[in-house]
């Protein structure tokens, strides 16, 4: 069994990350998933949130939204629509987006709800990730 996982994060426009990790936490659509080496093959839709991983003593995190994650016993591949590193996050912009979206949510119709909800979650994840830095 492999000691570490090969972790790869790609978005439609570029490869964001390629490295190794001993543990990966994936924000799945049904909640957070912890993955250790030797995990059963699994395929999940991604929700919105922080992708966290640790390797040795170091930890890393990315804010991701949308897409899929494929887990193999020795590898995790994340296909995200959005993937941002912590220093790419504009906290002020996220705050104002959060306020706007939350205000809009109060009057939102059922069709708009999903999109707004995703905006809120993305903004929260961005703020959370930036705060944890």
């Amino acid at each position, binding site marked *: 069994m492999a000691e570490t996982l090969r972790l*790869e994060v*790609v*978005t*439609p*426009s*570029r*490869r964001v990350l390629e490295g190794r990790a001993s543990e990966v936490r994936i924000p*799945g*659509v*049904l909640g957070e*998933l912890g993955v250790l080496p030797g995990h*059963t*093959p*699994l*395929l*999940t*839709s991604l929700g919105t949130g922080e992708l966290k991983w640790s390797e040795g003593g170091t930890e890393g995190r990315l804010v991701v939204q949308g*897409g*899929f994650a*494929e887990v*193999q016993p020795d590898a995790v*591949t994340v*296909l995200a629509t959005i993937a941002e590193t912590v220093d790419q996050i504009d906290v002020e912009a996220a705050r104002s987006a959060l306020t706007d979206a939350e205000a809009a949510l109060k009057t939102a119709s059922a069709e708009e709800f999903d999109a707004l909800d995703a905006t809120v979650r993305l903004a929260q994840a961005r703020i959370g990730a930036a705060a944890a830095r």
Partner: protein
Amino acid sequence: MPSTRDLTRRIRSVKGTQQITKAMKMVAAAKLRRAQDAVTNARPYADTLSRVLANVADRTEESHPLLERRSGGRIWLVVVSSDKGLCGSFNANLLRQIERDLKKKRWPDAELVVIGRKASDYFRVREFPVVHQERDTMNQLSAADGPRLGAMFMKAFTSGQVDEVWIAYNKFVSVLRQEITIEQLLPIQPPAAESNAEEAGTDYLYEPNAEGLLAALLPAYVETEVQTVLYDSAAAEQASRMTSMGAATKNAGEMIDALTMLYNRTRQAAITKELIEIVSGAQALGD
């Protein structure tokens, strides 16, 4: 024989043209680099997606509307050309090939979706039915165009308006080579999985479920395919323009050389003629 004045004028004009073609070559080279970057950056996602899809398609029995084969024979043929000209045989070859295929009834009941001004102009004066055209997409290609067009094709396909969608474009092979490619986009033909004896047979765990995942994977796959095609075509266009403008610059250089040679000869001939006149005039006086 042309006068020296005419020749200098022509030389000047060809030099002007050469400067323009040289500048266009340099611009195309810069744009090519950017287009190539877009191709390379988009590749990991496309490759991974197609690998995951291959694995899933291999292991699951689930069906999906986008995989469904129908025998209706109504087809959309998507033609990806360029918006601008002066790129050698880039558009002409593709369009001629498609017209030949259409005339040979490769797709008996095909309607065209044309992307790029060149294809749009070409098919406007011909008898083939065009259902949709885009005249400004290739000039300012963005990452949103693939998903937008992909969604349009999938809607036409799932609504039963068409039974197959094909896409024809210039594939970027290398700077010197572009390859006309005509391939089927819908229904999706799942990419073949790499045979891996160790993993074969072990099914994934799916979250939330296989059906839902397949329903999300397949559209993403189509969108990525379309985006890849657009990026490829854009890179091929710039490569083709760069090559043809390079050739034009070289030809202009040769023409300038030939004209300069002619100019010198004419000038010399004029001088010789004048000398002869003077000498023979002097001789006539001396006699």
